[in-house]
């Protein structure tokens, strides 16, 4: 174990931390603003990677896949937030979406049971349409129980969606381990002081720093950012002084999904994209959020760096307890200061 080892491991840790920052900062902001523990955040990471694969497959451009995947998943995040994480507004659309989903499942079951009645695609569509209308009117008779202010139900709802996304990804993209290949220019290494550093990891660090700076500028220097910070500190008070916290949460949720998907595209190059990655990233993202403090951007940066380094050195130095050394500090921090190192009460 010479200096070389420490330099390489530290570099790997920092670049992994850069990836974790993308996932963790969004999760942290979502928690800070909406007090929602979003368990589908790992799914955004995974889906971002998958969408990027499709974009690359269709256009051949890696650079194009970054913004497209992130925007697509941000849109998904907005839909989820507007329709399901708030009970007011869009009641009709929500009921329609649920009715449509149920109707498709019902028709699939019917097809399984009576294949000769629902054979062709058009027959399937007709039966599904009728079922949608019927279920829609049935569901309209039942009102939704407001989900705000019930932490557990919000958590479980996001898990339910994580399961749905997982299955959808499996159906669309299959169960194989896939790789996102960045342009050849990125696969080279650069030599710094006799150490070979993969250029791609340098790019990851640069990307995370750039995004971190932009986020910081938006949060600290703009009116919107001030409104977000006010909402994190005291949502009720922020509403009282006329801040539209409803719009803020939509914006933050979309931003969080955007960043997670971006992380999925960038991380897909060296982690791979495979089923189960969603629930692998999720606890790591939580570790970032908890160590850094919920709702704090600077905290997320430090948390990501800490988790990235702990993960890398843990795996290299004491592999048998490496995850333990990652999560045990998380427990201690939570027990001593539940709001995290940089979180505010």
């Amino acid at each position, binding site marked *: 174990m010479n200096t070389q080892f420490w330099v390489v491991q530290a570099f790997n840790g920092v670049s992994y931390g850069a990836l974790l920052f993308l996932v963790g900062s969004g999760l942290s902001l979502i928690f800070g603003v909406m007090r929602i523990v979003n368990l589908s955040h790992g799914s955004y990471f995974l889906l971002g990677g998958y969408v990027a694969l499709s974009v690359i497959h269709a256009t051949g451009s890696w650079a194009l896949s970054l913004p497209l995947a992130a925007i697509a998943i941000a849109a998904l995040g907005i839909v989820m937030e507007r329709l399901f994480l708030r009970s007011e507004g869009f009641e009709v659309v929500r009921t329609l979406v649920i009715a449509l989903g149920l109707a498709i499942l019902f028709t699939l079951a019917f097809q399984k049971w009576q294949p000769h009645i629902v054979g062709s695609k058009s027959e399937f569509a007709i039966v599904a349409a009728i079922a949608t209308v019927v279920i829609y009117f049935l569901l309209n008779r039942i009102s*939704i*129980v407001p989900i705000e202010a019930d932490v557990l139900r919000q958590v479980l709802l996001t898990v339910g969606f994580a399961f749905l996304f997982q299955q959808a990804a499996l159906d669309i993209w299959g169960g194989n381990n896939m790789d996102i290949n960045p342009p050849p220019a990125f696969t080279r290494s650069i030599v710094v002081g006799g150490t070979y550093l993969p250029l791609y990891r340098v790019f990851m660090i640069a990307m995370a720093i750039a995004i971190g700076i932009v986020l910081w500028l938006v949060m600290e220097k703009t009116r919107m950012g001030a409104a977000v910070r006010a909402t994190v500190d005291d949502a009720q008070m922020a509403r009282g002084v006329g801040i539209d916290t409803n719009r803020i949460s939509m914006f933050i949720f979309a931003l969080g999904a955007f960043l997670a998907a971006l992380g999925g595209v960038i991380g897909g190059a060296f982690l791979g994209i495979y089923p189960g990655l969603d*629930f692998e990233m999720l606890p790591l993202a939580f570790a970032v959020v908890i160590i850094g403090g919920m709702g704090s951007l600077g905290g997320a940066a430090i948390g990501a760096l800490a988790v990235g380094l702990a993960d890398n050195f843990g795996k290299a130095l004491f592999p048998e307890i490496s995850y333990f050394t990652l999560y045990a500090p998380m427990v201690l921090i939570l027990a001593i200061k539940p709001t995290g190192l940089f979180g505010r009460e």
Partner: protein
Amino acid sequence: MASQQIKILMVAIALVAFVFIVPQSGSFVILLATRAMAFGILAMSVDLLLGYTGMSSMGQAAYFGVGAYLTAVLATKFHFGMGWDFWLVVVLGILIGAGLAALFGLFAVRAGGVYFLMITLALGQCVWGLAYRWNSLTGGDNGINLSGRPNFGLDLGNEVIFFYLVFGFFAVSMLMMYVLVRSPFGQSLAGIRERELRMQILGYNTWLHKYIAFIIAGGFGGLAGVLWAHTNGHVSPETVVLTTSVDALLMVVLGGAGTLIGATIGTAIVFGLREYLSTLVPWWQYALGGVYVLTILYLPMGLMGIPSRLRQRFAQGKNEDSKKLATKPS
């Protein structure tokens, strides 16, 4: 009180019917029922925390996992627990679950609400990390295969005998938890769930109450783990992964928290969907996800809450009608 006795009678009849009908079915159904009952003990232990104490634990799989790994490690490394000493393993499993909960509870119990959720998640991940990485003890990602079930005169390798054994543990666990929640201790837990501050003002040591409940739930989790290891014949990090904890929580919410019987109904539905439906159709996970989303949006009290939801609806309907009458221009 009478309605309570009717409910107990209904549960007892359902259990007796269950224990008579299932062994008549094929081995697939018997194994499915055995698995569901072993996991059902875990779900009830989650309900003890969530439904009766108001603590939503996201790390209950930790106690389940240590129980299962204890069984597997003792059986494969020390050939312990394959005969009469199986009963010792059961006791050890309960003790290790409770012991781990006693340790974890020191960190977790004083946290409230969302922080309790997060800290139990982190604690669960600690155990998962050890199971996943500590290759020499746990076999890492591959896990541990058990070579068979204990045989102590009763051959548990026989599915039906094993089914009866797990049913016995399941029924006794349910009874014990029922007695617990009806006891004065259980009543003060419910008081803490409703309003912790008031209980503190009344002079209750609410931390100690929650801590003890946490330990008891851990003990039941360990017991469920021991049975699970022998039911599956295989223990892997999947047993302690985050989704196992979340599954247990969802089962409780699906059936109805704070009812115990709801936890078992939720377990039965989830296992039925996951293991029976998955043999029939490839889209079973949509059905499962859909059940979760619908339950959470429309039935926060779970399936057991349907009667009260209906009652509320009829009462509301009447009110609306009377309002309409009142505002109708004459």
